[in-house]
Every structure is written in C-alpha cells, then in structure tokens.
C-alpha cells in the first residue's frame, strides 16, 4: 500500500497547474469518477488505475479539483488529528499490570 501511495503522489506532482485549457469543465459521470479517485487515494489501486488517474487529472477539471480536495483532507487529518498526547505513565502501568498477571 505505501508503494501505491507513493506512485500516486508522483502522478499528481506532474499535475500542479490549477487549471488547464485541456480540461473539460463538466464531468459526465461524477459519482463513478470520484469514487474511483477516492479508492486510488486510499491506496486501493484498481487495475490500470494510474493511467486512468493521469487521464482524469489531465482532462477533467471537476476530477482534478475533487482529487486535490480529497488529498488535502487526508493530509490534514493525518497531520492534525494524530497528536493526542499519551499519558506519561500509561505504558509503565500496562507493563506493571502484565507483570502482576503473570
């Protein structure tokens, strides 16, 4: 899975421009496309996913915007919601409980 995510990132790096004349402004199959993009971002790569992703990012503005929004949400969740400080003595008390249980 990490490998897939890395590859996905590479594809995206080449697509940084906000808008492009190449991209159509309407997506014909929003729910299908977006669900596919979401699966790719989750590392659940479907067969031929990288090619499909590249194609959509190049040619479809709604897909491009949705992909970057979804990516931003995953990033902020990962960076801003995982830092709950663990109580100092928790690990120690668990080790003690295990000792006592033996």
């Amino acid at each position, binding site marked *: 899975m990490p490998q897939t995510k890395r590859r996905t990132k590479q594809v995206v790096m080449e697509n940084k421009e906000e808008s492009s004349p190449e991209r159509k402004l309407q997506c014909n199959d929003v729910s299908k496309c977006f669900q596919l993009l*979401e699966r790719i971002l989750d590392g659940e790569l479907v067969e031929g996913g990288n090619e499909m992703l590249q194609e959509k990012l190049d040619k479809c503005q709604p897909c491009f915007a*949705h992909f970057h929004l979804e990516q931003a*949400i995953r*990033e902020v*969740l990962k960076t*801003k919601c995982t830092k709950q400080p663990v109580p100092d003595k928790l690990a120690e008390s668990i080790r003690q409980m295990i000792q006592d249980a*033996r």
Partner: protein
Amino acid sequence: MSDVQRRKYSQEERSTIFDGEFMPHIDSMYNFAFRLTFDEDDAKDLVQDTYMKAFRFINSFEQGTNAKAWLFRILKNSFINDYRKKSKKPATVDYQEVETFYNSDDADYQRTSDLRAESVRDMLGDEISNALNALAVDFRTVIILADLEGFTYEEMAKILDIPIGTVRSRLHRARNLLKDTLKGYAQSMGYATDEEED
C-alpha cells in the same frame, strides 16, 4: 500458518511479542481510544483493558501478522461492549438511517463541490479535529482507521467485522459528512465559496 500448527508461546516469546509487536502501537491505540470516548480517563482504561486482553489471548495472535490491526480490533470490540453501554451520551444516530439519507452521491458532490483544497489546508488543527469528532461514531471510526492510521480496506473489514463493500461505502459517506462540516467552517471563516455573500 494454520491453526493446527499453532502452539502456545513460551513466557519468553510472549514477552518478546508483547514488547516488540504490541507496545509500539500504544500512541495510535491511545489516539483511537480518545477519539472514541472523548475522555482521557476512559481512553486510558480502554487502552489498558485492550492490552490486558491482548496479553491474555496472545496465543491466538499469529506472530508476523499485523499486530496493529489485531490490537485495534480488540480495542474496538472492548469499546462497543464495555464503554458504549455505560456512556451517558445519547445514542449515536443509527448509521443505516444516515446511509440511506445521504444516498444520493451526485447531490453530495454538488453540496460540497465548492469546498476548496486550499481552504482545507489553511484550517486549524482544532477545526479539523472538531469536524472529525462531530461525526457519528461509526463514521468517525472508518476515517480514523483509514486516514489517521493508514489501514487498508481489507484490514478495516477485519477490524470492524463488516464486508469490504460496506467499508468502502461507509468511508465514502463519512467523507461526505466531514466535507459538509468543513464547508461550514470554510464559509464562516470567510473563505471564498460559491455561496459566500459579499
């Protein structure tokens, strides 16, 4: 590999597994517990209970398999069995109902299509955290497992005892609900969205 080959671990092996494979996940476990209970003491108890259970049932853990997923499954079950019951908070919305209510994908996308990646990136940690915490527990859980902890759909299916298809759809709904909340924040912060009045 199979159950037939499984044997009891020696005391030394148990210590090795516990310290080497279980304890390193304590930060993730605590974060998960805290986001389920919203209470430091409850989270602490939940993590302790989970590790006690993990130790008691260590023989059913197969060395070399995903210890983190195994631990998360125990924690989730402990939460449902012990903590959710005694919680004084009102029962969470039945997600079946919510899933039906939010069943129109196209409508979902239209509702949140004007939320922009940049405004999400500019939000404060508290806002992101509050938006996540505002989700009903079943939706919150899938986001935590997928986005905070990086579990695959397959691992999530095992942790939650639900089919992969359900993981996928629940995660999808959870993200849409989260985007609704974030969009509300973005508007109140004055970020440009289509609905903003000047």
